[in-house]
């Protein structure tokens, strides 16, 4: 069901009524979301990861594990009650490092999605509303060109190009690179929905009553796309972490002592043949858990906005 949910401007008198209906809308969304128990798990995982990332300096068992000096006396110790995830090749507590590493992962998600979603959605909205005109075609051609190169590859080559000669690539270049690779996916998503919604009767009605194109794009079309955009934002939280881990796996990660899941995994993998499995398994499980959490949350958001009973 496609309904523009903000047709008329509310008068001042109906303010409290509007607040009440908004609360009802929210509780309906929450009902749809929680109907699927797996979505709750996803929400829990994502909230837990965010909490760990924010609080990590205060809650990790060994705060020195992130930036402190190496302790070779304790290197490569197997998991034990004192070090539940074992220690790495520098004798640092792996659990503390995994918890710290969520900060880097979430920062990547925040920066990349924070920068790309809005321009991506705006371009898609404009292209969708003016579908068939030349500037719409131009936007979509540009988006499709960027989409043709896999984001990881585009990010890798842009990160290389942005890095000055004789210096190693850093977080910032990697983030800029991922950002440049990401926007067209939003443009494509919004375009495909917007270009079909713009032919719906309620858009035609708004046009007939003389609504401005900005009003139609933002007040009539955008509310109907918000669900799929939010779903994608959540799913992309997982994808950005994956790409970030892949980038740091090949050396485009955080600089040396900073804990970062991809780098930890690639360092751990070199010790795997020697029987040191914990420095590979736990970062890997952390990556899988975060991505899984964002995916399940995304499914829940999708249920929330989809109409009909499934």
């Amino acid at each position: 069901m496609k309904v523009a949910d903000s047709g008329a401007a509310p008068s001042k008198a109906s303010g409290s009524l509007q607040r009440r209906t908004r609360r009802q809308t929210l509780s309906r969304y929450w009902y749809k979301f929680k109907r699927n128990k797996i979505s709750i798990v996803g929400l829990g995982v994502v909230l837990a990861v965010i909490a760990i990332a924010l609080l990590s300096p205060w809650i990790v068992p060994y705060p020195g594990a992130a930036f402190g000096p190496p302790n070779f006396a304790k290197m490569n110790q197997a998991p034990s009650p004192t070090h539940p995830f074992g220690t790495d090749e520098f004798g640092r507590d792996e659990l503390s490092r995994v918890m710290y590493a969520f900060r880097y992962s979430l920062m990547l998600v925040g920066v990349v999605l924070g920068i790309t979603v809005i321009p991506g959605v705006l371009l898609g909205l404009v292209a969708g509303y003016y579908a068939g005109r030349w500037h719409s075609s131009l936007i979509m051609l540009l988006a499709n060109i960027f989409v043709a190169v896999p984001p990881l590859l585009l990010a890798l080559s842009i990160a290389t190009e942005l890095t000055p000669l004789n210096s190693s690539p850093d977080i910032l270049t990697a983030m800029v690179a991922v950002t440049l690779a990401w926007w067209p996916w939003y443009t494509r998503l919004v375009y495909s929905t917007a270009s079909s919604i713009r032919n719906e009767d309620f858009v035609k009605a708004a046009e007939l009553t003389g609504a401005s194109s900005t009003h139609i794009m933002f007040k009539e079309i955008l509310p109907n796309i918000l669900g799929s955009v939010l779903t994608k934002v959540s799913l992309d939280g997982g994808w950005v972490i994956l790409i970030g881990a892949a980038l740091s796996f090949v050396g485009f990660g955080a600089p040396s002592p900073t804990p970062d899941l991809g780098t930890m995994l690639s360092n751990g993998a070199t010790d795997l043949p020697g029987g040191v499995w914990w420095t590979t398994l736990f970062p890997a499980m952390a990556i899988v858990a975060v991505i899984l959490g964002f995916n399940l949350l995304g499914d829940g958001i999708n249920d929330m906005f989809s109409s009909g009973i499934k």
Partner: protein
Amino acid sequence: MKWNWGFILRRLAYSVLALVGLSILVFAIARVLPGDPVRLALGPHASASAVFQLRIQLHLNQPIWLQYIYWIEGIFTGNWGISLFTHRNVLTDVEAFLPATLELLIAAAAIDILIAVPLGVIAGRRENTVVDNAVRVLSYVGIAIPSFVVAIFLQHFFPSYVGQLSPGVQPPPHITGLAFLDALVTAHFSTAWNALLHIIPPAFALALGPIAQEARIMRSSVVENLGRDYTVAEISRGLPERVITLKYLMKPSLIPTITIYALDISSLIANAFLVELIFNWGGFSQYGLNAILSKDLNAIVAVVMIAGVLFVISNFLVDLTVGYLDPRIRLQSRSDE
């Protein structure tokens, strides 16, 4: 089969347009962003006159659009520039390394669709049973595990399957460059078997994520089509279940699956970069990764361009497949991109 040739030509024209755009993007990445190709080639201690000489030789003193024309001309005449890494023409490198990666990608794409579609159909036909739930759990986990993580563990558990062939196994005569195919057509069956054993772990590592995703899509579209009137009509007419599933249910259910499949091919190409590294596959992706890490500009340009071309070609093929499956798309007079 009635084909709308206008549809095919339009898709083809659009693919060519996308490739032209891609070449401009790649050129821009290589030339406009910081980093001087002459200094990269000659090193920081080269004399000013040597820099000047090479600048003229590479047409870098010409306007940027003319440089682009020279660059495109070079691509078509086989002059792809010298790789800083292998000191050969990049085109020679591409010919040497690309077949191994193509073989891996084809194997991964085949494993992907051959497992995903049956899984999706089985789960969809047995909605909400143990089988369905097992597939659901598998797909959730499969999507969340990055292919390079799968690769690390597979490589650890099957260490003897690193590389394209076991050490000591004579590579088959070079025909296509695809080790398995070459060994098969020249009747070196033990070599072919060896090549097959080596390709399965990396191909599976690449395919797991896409399998999970497509099995899920296939399942939900099978469930959706099962509820449609035409399926009810077929069941009430007493058509055998097998015929309904294989003939009438598969075709419409495959359309969304194939559409996602096209996008997943892009992720196969990208993930091959890490998986090849982990399995020491020695193909094009590994070459590309080395190029990227050593800032080998000519090689990077070739790698990005070829990845883009592979993606555009596979998308074109998928468009044709969807057109084959769905007459509404194939026969429609006007396509909207």
